[in-house]
């Protein structure tokens, strides 16, 4: 949890995260740092990271390789400025690349074009 405090989260915010995610105490500081760096790499600033972690503390226990796969899948679908997508929909980070593939296939079956599916990710709550 040191890394979260050093990043600027208050004790109250960390407590709220731990109340929601009882596995947070098992999260590794190195992994959290790597996650922060990945999010910075896709354009997140501090305010976005604060928002994402406060809204979705479960991402702090997620496997880093799974997050990288998720990001690659979203890029494959032509989503740009992914920090915008995650800032709007922090829980999207809990999904796997397979989940995204499933959403894409479902929307395609509903008749949406690729462009409309990309739009869907920016304009809707996705859980």
């Amino acid at each position, binding site marked *: 949890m040191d890394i979260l405090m050093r990043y600027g989260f208050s004790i109250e915010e960390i407590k709220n995260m731990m109340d929601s995610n009882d596995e947070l105490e098992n999260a590794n500081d190195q992994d959290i740092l790597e996650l922060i760096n990945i999010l910075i790499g896709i354009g997140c600033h501090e305010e976005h990271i604060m928002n994402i972690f406060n*809204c979705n503390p479960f991402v702090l226990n997620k496997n880093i390789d799974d997050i990288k796969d998720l990001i690659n899948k979203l890029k494959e679908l032509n989503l740009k400025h992914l920090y915008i997508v995650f800032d709007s929909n922090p829980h999207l980070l809990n999904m796997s690349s397979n989940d995204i593939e499933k959403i894409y296939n479902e929307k395609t079956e509903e008749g949406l074009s690729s462009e*409309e599916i990309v739009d869907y990710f920016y304009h809707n709550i996705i859980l």
Partner: protein
Amino acid sequence: MLDIGFTEKDIRQIVTRSSHNLYNFKNLYQYLSKSGINNDDFINIVKTVPNILSTSIENIKNRIILIQQLGFNKIDSFNIIKAYPYVLELNEEAINNKITKFKDFGFADNDIINLISSNPTLLSIEENEISQSFDYFKKLNYSNTEIINIFNKEPSLIINDLDKIKERINKFKVLGFTQEEIVKITSLLPNIFLDESNLLATKFNYLFEFGFDEENIISIIKKIPIILKPNYLDSLENKLNKLLELGFSKENIIDITNTDPYILLYSTDNLTNKVFGIKGLGYSIEDTINMISDFPLLFGYDITNIEKKIKFYKSINLDNYILENSKILIYNLDYIKSRWNFLKDSNCKDKLDLFITDKDFYKQYNVRSLDLIKE
């Protein structure tokens, strides 16, 4: 021996089963008690493997060093001896064989150490018993990786009663979960297979009595399976009651939770602080409840994030529109500001074009709004 707690019957059995040579009893007792083995455990060890009474202390120490060399720490080594005293009779090859069989199933070295440390009786398990457990889960469409994850999280499941596991899976099926959904949930929370109190039914029934319908409850559990963990039971009731106390109607609560089930995982303090945080930005409690009811993700967003967005919309005279359609608070500020800067310069007549889809924005203005965002 009687002073330590052996009964006369114990002593007769030990003498019969051992080579009648108890010369090492006192030294063995002293060595193991100094290492943390209490009288009851010592009695169990000697009753299980009475021949160690004729084994030299040096040999026993070497056996313990061998176990430690395999990767177990000192405490775990003695726990292994307590739980599975037969290990004191095994040679190096035999102990290695017992560990190798786990590797054959795909367990990593560290996982094996953790598995056996947390469940030393696994050393007694035969290979066909592990196969049986693996095959059982494979027939239920669990992948090898999922099976290994399940056993790593709950090692006792390797030797658990397969009928009980089947019974737990059936409980999910009766409620309407598909096999695929059951695999996903139980891979994440294999402790469900050990749950004697039937938390699944308890939570399901609680939500049902509150007013959620079956389909929605299944959807909630699918999205946030960790709600099935025991520590989320009391808090589930507290949260729903807190939302009622804050002014949300039952219908509101059901709607917002169906939209965003993660609300059930936020603490009551967090829920309360968010409501009053948004109210503190200049809204009545009624407006706040309406805003959250229309856009439940507001419960999750950082209050600073919400505040900046509201401030921006107020600066462009869209504050009333927030009350009509609080979902506009979903948009990242960079996204909205870049659109606004473009629309200002384009003499746009309708500010609500800020919120149209990118496809419609392109149709209207021949520009891709995502291209307006500076890297």
